[in-house]
């Protein structure tokens, strides 16, 4: 199944989590599931960052379009309404990624 992309897919990468999960002894299914949980959690946090900064009147529009394929349009919409939204997305994702990586390293 083709992986679904989002408005932030050009700004962040969570490949590091996949690589770190590969370094511990897990079955293919376990690895896939853990990666999916991390990915979903980061997705929720990024949705939250946007909702926290968007003006009230624009929240519904954003939620309505968040899962469409028009990622560029969605990101442009956000860039016009939230100052430095790209940095905010990157910082949030980086900080979460760090947490997930630390969790993996701790159990090694």
């Amino acid at each position, binding site marked *: 199944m083709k992986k*679904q992309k989002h408005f932030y897919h050009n700004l962040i990468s969570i490949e590091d989590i996949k690589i770190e999960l590969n370094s*511990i*002894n*897990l*079955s293919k299914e*376990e690895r896939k*599931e*853990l990666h*999916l*949980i*991390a990915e*979903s*959690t980061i*997705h*929720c*946090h990024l*949705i*939250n960052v946007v*909702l926290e900064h968007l003006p009230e009147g624009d*929240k*519904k529009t954003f*939620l*309505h*379009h*968040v*899962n*469409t394929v028009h990622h560029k349009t969605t990101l442009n919409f956000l860039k016009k309404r939230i100052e430095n939204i790209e940095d905010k997305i990157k910082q949030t994702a980086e900080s979460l990624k760090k*947490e*997930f990586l630390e*969790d*993996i390293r701790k*159990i090694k």
Partner: protein
Amino acid sequence: MPDNNSHYHRLKKKWLSKQRKIEKHINKKHGHHIISLLPKQQLIGGLMLAAIPFTQLAPSIYANVSEDQKQEQRHISPKEVSVKLKEMLPNSVRPLISGEERLIAEFLSNLYHIPISAELEGIKLNRSYGYIGKEQHLRRYPGDNLYEHFDNQNEASLHSPEGVAPGLGAWGYFAPSKEEFTEKDKQREKYYIAVQTFLSPGWEENIGRYGQFFKYKKMLLVNPDNGKAIVVVIGDAGPAQWTGKSLGGSPEVMHFLERVDGSQKGPVLYFFINDPSDTIPLGPLEI
């Protein structure tokens, strides 16, 4: 030497907790925006909730009940169940958003060790949390009458006042004749609910398929005010939308859940049970 499998369980437990935390936060802070999109989504049937971010969460995450979670929730009283449910439910009785449904379904699945979900085989009801009203008994086979329904005088005095509905249920008689009437048919009428099948997203385009899907489909019903839970089947369609109620329960179901009709009516949670082998018995559940 560390157990590799424990790596998986430890990470899963920790990460699911992180995920639930942010989901709860979004539901609490922005749920009203998400819920405001629902009517628009319902208009386009099967695409309901397509725009809601929570659909990105994989159902498989919730389908696997870890042993740790089972242990954590093994000893819990109905009163504690009620407290936990209240923490997850909105203040008003409204349709739950996808994230709320997932959290509650996960909690109840773990608690009763029954796989439940708001959506099964791609089909959803119009809601999973709503006011329940009292239904009448249904005729189970041609020639059935009220007093045939009960095993003893106590049952008769408790459950006969509601009487028998003048018409048949949405799928007709439970058995074609008294001779072919089985214990399974009896249990189905005893523990039946009526749900608004006709309001399920995609109903009009798929009446035949949806009708077959809903017929005697098992559901878990929970009264969030007392934590009582019961396994039931969908035995009829209703009630009408104008009643302000979202589903109806047989006299036995209502009695067990301690729910009443009229001005004192209250809400219940209702989720599909995935039981293709038909191994989960109908009736009240013990924790």
